[in-house]
């Protein structure tokens, strides 16, 4: 990290007090405008104006000098955070943790986190982004726009730029939220010019001379400054002659005047200026290196004294650069080959002096590629770890293709940076090419990195070789390079989840979590945790999974103890687990929160739609059918059926399930016939839920034999893979089907298995959601935990006031029920509630189901017993 970039430039003694401009800057602060834009070409004194303004205001100040390398968003954000931390050390802490893993997380997550941290800034401050015109990256514009749109109360953003930034400036203007200072404002007027020459050059100019300069320079500050330097200390006749000559020609002002100024210096200074100007920054040592002399310190002191465009970059007077305009002129003093020579020597010097990244920059510029490649190999791990993929890829792209492709090491980083920058097609294409390189080089670590990417991509593409590749990657990587190891373990864990047993997958993911946690990788460790909790949901290790969610929500917190945005994703498994425990309201709140978090991070289909589907079930159980349907519709609308066929199929199955719950058997059957997977297909973890919907539909349709055939296979599938969390549902539905087939003994045994497992892990919901027939079977079950059994059985609900099952009657159903109790017919109820006869019937049937009764009178009696309805007066 270059500290010089966040250094607040020293204010120069202002030769002319630009009160009118300073007042306008003041006014912006006083009126609490969030934004100041200073937009004008080079050499109009933009930076000087701001540093002078800083002298007179008392507010915390932060400064970031941008350069073209900051178009790497990760680099930009790292520096932005470092800049914010000059105001307050805690600001941006959480965002900084995310940065190193930015390739793995959606960019939005970072911006949201950073924005939250800026919103919580402890005191008012001014943030200057200097030279913003170098920024071309779309995502940086979006981030800056987002920050401004949220109008953080303590932030005043001041942007210095040579061109208007791609932000919605008209909106800021219309809303009067921006102070704007432009070229017209920055130009010196005649009065300012006169004052300037008398202080800067000690020369009193005649009015017509000032006017002539005004015409020639159009008030361009840089030109006037050079003119002042040229005539400093001259007699008035000389000055008149100079002004005449100057205004009488058309040459580009900088070229004309710089020659004047340079001609007044010594040859050794000229050499020093021309060579050091090639570099973006230099110090005395480097100056000596480039000139072969040992007088750089002295020369720098003289340049500073003479006010010769030298800009100190730190307060220790160690690093310097020239004003951009003059650096450009100075560079034309050298021939191309002389410039390359300077760059070569600078590359060596930077590499030898612990600044290898600048070494790479100049080695690439000078075309010494072997040297650049070697430096890159030593630096790539660090740059990669910082997440600066754009920088890494830029460097690699500047190297000759043969050099990169000939090295497993460089090729590996190229493939990874392509992939992490979202160019996965290119990455895959590139990986295919690297197959040939492998033979030439046997560095296992470099090979392991390539394999880690192959494994990850194979995992994404559901390639059956994922496991094999991931295992090989883990073997090659050993204990080095935790990031690649984590990635490989995650691929392996996912592959195991798909192919083998869940316990193996969970154990692998725990390893990934441990590795990531030790390495301080927040996102991968949270990602692994999320995968583990979801595995445990399937495995039926409900209590362990809940424990993990609570643990993570306590561990991954910000400075105020609130869960981090990323950690809020754990509300999703937690919500699912609470639904299964029938804690419906809490479950709804958690799922809503988790889904919100996933959206603000930019993940729209997290966990294959499990979150949305469970939330819809929660709404359903709470009687809020409309919200359930709405949610499903929204989730479907957000899913591209072609790109995510598996998720799409699951939504369609879920739709059929809701139809079934609604009593629309023909609708559900239609899905089974047309869209549903054929029951003869092999069962996979993704297809299990759709198959369960088929089994339930067949059962409701009275096709018990078919249902049983399918359930047998699902049972076997779940048992073999220890998917006990799913087996609960399979066992309950199996019990119903067996009962219908007249195989009562087997039905009871199946129900017993479900009950015994559920009582240990606290599953309640599965017994309430499969229909009223469950209650009858439960009566026949001999359970190891009679208390738990009692709680499940509907008639005992009356002894459990406020139990979760009361939720099962919706407000609408209660309304209908009260009218039933009042003796109204379905038709009368429909008229009264403005709903159709069909809807009334549907509500009534649901009420019967939920209350486990067969007719209206029984329903009213049962509802009174349960306390849903007041008993009619005696």
């Amino acid at each position, binding site marked *: 990290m270059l500290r010089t970039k966040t250094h607040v430039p020293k204010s120069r003694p202002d030769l002319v007090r630009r009160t009118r401009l300073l007042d306008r800057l003041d006014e912006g602060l006083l009126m609490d405008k969030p934004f100041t834009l200073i937009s004008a*070409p*080079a*050499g*109009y004194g933009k930076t000087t104006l701001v540093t002078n303004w800083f002298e007179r205001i008392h507010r915390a100040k932060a400064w970031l000098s941008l350069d073209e390398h900051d178009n790497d968003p990760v680099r930009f954000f790292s520096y932005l955070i470092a800049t914010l931390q000059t105001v307050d050390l805690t600001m941006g802490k959480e965002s900084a943790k995310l940065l190193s893993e930015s390739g793995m997380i959606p960019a939005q997550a970072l911006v949201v986190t950073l924005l939250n941290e800026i919103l919580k800034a402890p005191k008012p401050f001014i943030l200057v982004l200097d030279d913003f*015109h170098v920024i071309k990256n779309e995502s940086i514009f979006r981030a800056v726009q987002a920050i401004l749109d949220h109008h953080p109360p303590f932030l005043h953003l001041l942007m210095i730029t*040579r*061109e208007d930034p791609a932000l919605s400036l008209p909106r800021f203007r219309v809303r009067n939220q921006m102070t704007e200072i432009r070229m017209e404002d920055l130009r010196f007027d005649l009065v300012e010019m006169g004052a300037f020459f008398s202080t800067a050059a000690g020369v009193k100019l005649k009015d017509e001379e000032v006017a002539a300069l005004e015409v020639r320079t159009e008030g*361009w500050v*840089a030109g006037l400054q050079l003119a002042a330097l040229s005539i400093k200390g001259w007699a008035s006749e000389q000055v008149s002659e100079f002004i005449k000559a100057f205004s009488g*020609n*058309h*040459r*580009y*002002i*900088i*070229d004309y005047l710089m020659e004047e100024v340079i001609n007044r210096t010594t040859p050794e200074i000229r050499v020093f200026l021309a060579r050091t100007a090639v570099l973006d920054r230099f110090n005395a040592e480097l100056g000596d290196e480039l000139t072969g002399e040992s007088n750089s310190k002295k020369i720098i002191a003289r340049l500073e004294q003479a006010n010769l465009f030298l800009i100190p970059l730190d307060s220790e007077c160690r690093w310097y650069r020239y004003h*951009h*305009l003059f650096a*450009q002129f100075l560079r*034309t003093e050298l021939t*191309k080959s002389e410039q390359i020579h300077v760059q070569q020597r600078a590359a060596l010097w930077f590499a030898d002096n612990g600044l290898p990244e600048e070494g790479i920059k100049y080695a690439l510029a000078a075309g010494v590629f072997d040297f650049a490649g070697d430096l890159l190999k030593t630096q790539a791990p660090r740059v990669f770890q910082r997440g600066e993929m754009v920088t890494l890829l830029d460097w690699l792209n500047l190297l000759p293709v043969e050099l990169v492709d000939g090295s497993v090491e460089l090729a590996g980083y190229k493939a990874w940076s392509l992939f992490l920058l979202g160019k996965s097609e290119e990455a895959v294409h590139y990986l295919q090419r690297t197959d040939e390189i492998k033979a030439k080089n046997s560095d296992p670590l470099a090979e392991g990195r390539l394999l880690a990417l192959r494994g990850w991509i194979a995992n994404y593409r559901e390639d059956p070789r994922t496991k094999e590749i991931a295992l090989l990657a883990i073997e090659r990587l050993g204990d080095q390079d935790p990031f690649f190891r984590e990635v490989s373990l995650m691929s392996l864990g996912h592959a195991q989840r798909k192919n083998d047993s869940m316990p193996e997958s969970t154990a692998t993911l725990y390893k990934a979590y441990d590795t990531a946690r030790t390495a301080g990788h927040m996102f991968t460790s949270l990602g692994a945790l999320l995968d583990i909790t979801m595995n445990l949901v399937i495995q039926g290790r409900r209590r362990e999974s809940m424990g993990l969610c609570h643990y993570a929500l306590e561990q991954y917190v910000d400075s105020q103890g609130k869960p981090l945005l990323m950690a809020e994703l754990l509300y999703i498994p937690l919500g699912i687990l609470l639904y299964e425990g029938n804690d419906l309201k809490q479950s709804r709140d958690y799922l809503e929160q988790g889904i919100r978090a996933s959206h603000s991070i930019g993940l729209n289909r997290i966990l294959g739609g499990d979150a949305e589907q469970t939330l819809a079930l929660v709404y359903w159980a709470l009687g809020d059918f409309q919200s359930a349907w709405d949610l499903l519709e929204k989730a479907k609308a957000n899913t591209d059926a072609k790109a995510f066929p598996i998720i799409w199929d699951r939504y369609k199955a879920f739709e059929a399930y809701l139809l079934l719950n609604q009593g629309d058997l023909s609708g559900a059957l239609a899905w089974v016939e047309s869209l549903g997977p054929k029951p003869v297909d092999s069962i996979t973890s993704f297809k299990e839920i759709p198959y369960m919907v088929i089994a339930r539909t067949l059962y409701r349709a009275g096709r018990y034999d078919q249902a049983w055939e399918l359930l047998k296979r699902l049972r076997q599938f779940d048992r073999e893979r220890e998917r006990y969390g799913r087996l609960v549902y399979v066992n309950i539905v199996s019990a119903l089907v067996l009962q219908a087939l007249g195989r009562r003994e087997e039905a009871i045994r199946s129900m017993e298995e479900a009950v015994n497992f559920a009582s240990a892990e606290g599953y309640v919901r599965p017994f309430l959601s499969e229909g009223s027939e469950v209650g009858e079977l439960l009566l026949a079950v001999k359970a190891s935990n009679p208390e738990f059994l009692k709680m499940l059985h509907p008639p005992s609900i009356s002894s459990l006031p406020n139990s979760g099952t009361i939720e099962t009657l919706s407000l609408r159903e209660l309304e209908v029920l009260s009218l039933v109790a009042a003796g109204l017919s379905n038709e009368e109820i429909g008229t009264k509630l403005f709903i159709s006869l069909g809807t009334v019937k549907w509500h009534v049937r649901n009420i019967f189901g939920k209350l486990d009764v067969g007719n209206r009178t029984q329903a009213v009696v049962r509802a009174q017993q349960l306390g849903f309805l007041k008993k009619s007066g005696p």
Partner: protein
Amino acid sequence: MERYEIIIKGHIDQRREDWFAGLEITLLSGGESRLAGEVADQAALHGILNRIRDMGLQLSSVKRQD
């Protein structure tokens, strides 16, 4: 490759041709300079315009020559 003609205010030195991607610099009598020649693509053109901006030069016109 496309041919462009760029007119800017002020006379700039011919030795700056390197800076402007090899465009030929002609000094015009009205105190303007003309940069003309082939430009690789739009990105190269914008690179040249940026350089003009960075030098604080005033742009008078940019024309594509067919």
